[in-house]
């Protein structure tokens, strides 16, 4: 197999820049997803009237439609009604819209795993509702949710690969351009795979480490 190494070296700067874009999108997407997910799960856990229904509708809408279509709506659809967002903004909003519902479900499963008797035990030593949530419910919920939260983070970072469809110059987009211009298909794709691995593997390892640390108390190793 003869790889064109000169081509690989020459296109490195382009990839580096695109990787940076992908990481930024991933970072903001994951961060907002966590925030949205957390708020939604709190609404569901405390069964807040009206908001609860809105959250349910949001979750179903977000989980049962493809990200690509959500992005098209944000990028092409909203322009038609006079809201013009930059492609980066659309990408981050799209990712957060999708990720938020996945994170909400992850958090919710954690909340639901906290047993009623642990809550009563907290009440019996005089904890207030806020203290109960802070010292008992959240830590226990988190240690149950953390594996799915981690999986969602990786999933979202990988999902960034379709934002090229709305003209964001991410890794996928750069790769397609290079293939189109130079026909160095194999080299371009190989670099794409390697760069995704270089980004996601450390994230995976960090998450595994975090998971162990958080779950040690309740589940051991």
């Amino acid at each position, binding site marked *: 197999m003869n790889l064109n190494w000169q081509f690989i070296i020459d296109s490195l700067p382009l990839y580096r820049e695109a990787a940076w874009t992908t990481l930024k999108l991933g970072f903001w997407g994951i961060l907002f997803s966590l925030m949205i997910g957390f708020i939604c799960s709190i609404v569901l856990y405390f069964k807040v009237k009206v908001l609860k229904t809105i959250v349910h509708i949001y979750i179903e809408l977000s989980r049962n439609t493809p990200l690509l279509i959500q992005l098209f709506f944000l990028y092409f659809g909203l322009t038609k009604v006079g809201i013009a967002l930059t492609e980066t903004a659309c990408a981050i909003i799209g990712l957060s819209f999708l990720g938020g519902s996945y994170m909400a479900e992850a958090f919710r499963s954690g909340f639901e795993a906290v047993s009623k*008797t*642990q809550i*009563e*035990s*907290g*009440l*019996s*030593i*005089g*904890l*207030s509702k806020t*203290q109960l949530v802070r*010292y*008992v419910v959240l*830590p*226990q919920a988190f*240690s149950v949710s953390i594996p799915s939260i981690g999986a969602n983070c990786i999933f979202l970072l990988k999902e960034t690969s379709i934002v090229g469809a709305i003209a964001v110059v991410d890794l996928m987009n750069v790769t397609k351009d290079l293939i189109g211009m130079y026909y160095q298909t194999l080299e371009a794709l190989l670099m794409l795979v390697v760069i995704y691995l270089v980004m996601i593997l450390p994230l995976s390892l960090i998450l595994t480490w975090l998971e162990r640390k958080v779950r040690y*108390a*309740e*589940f*051991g190793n």
Partner: protein
Amino acid sequence: MHKEANEVLLEIKGLFKKYDDMTVLDDVNLSINKGEVVVILGPSGCGKSTLLRCLNGLEKIQGGDIRYRNKSLVDKDVNWQEIRQHIGMVFQNYELFSHMTVIENILLGPVKVQKRDKNEVMEQANQLLDRVGLLDRKDSYPRQLSGGQKQRIAIVRALCMNPEIMLFDEVTASLDPEMVREVLDVILGLAKQGMTMLIVTHELSFARAVADKIVFIDKGKICEISDPDEFFTHPKTERAQHFLNKFQY
């Protein structure tokens, strides 16, 4: 054991409790004096545990009154967070916080709820842990302890709040037989110190040894309240006789 000044700590008057259509407690009247050990006996599902849970504000009641130091606990504006610091409770399944070490479990209430000095509580916790023979387990997680150990820790956790009354809800019911004793010994020790206690149990010989007063409940009603020796030798009601017979082989 102790019958000191007849200062009434807890008074239950005409307590009525139902789940949906099922009446669980029906016109329960009982008063507990300071330093008194009251053991509640009765067949499964008779409402014993529910009664204890009502006294800790874990169940809403539909009628009657519960008074602690002559203050009603039925009013809407009752501050249970305050009351629960005086009425400690230990559960059948220990319910230590699974994500915290033993010492963290014990410190949580005194430090966060009662805002006491951490070092002072730590000292008290060490003493109590030492007394139940578990000082060396203070940095363990609950999953690393046996049932009997967990239950002794749960008792220490409740005691560290310096409660005036302790409620024990079938605290040995989930334990292996050889671990029952270590927990009962701790409770017996508390009785000797004059702790006011309300104990729900199925351990009859323990009940006889520890109780100042036996309350026998059946189908949500108090059938009899007697002196322990009298209850075990000459139960007044037929239902109590029937209940006691079931325990004899």
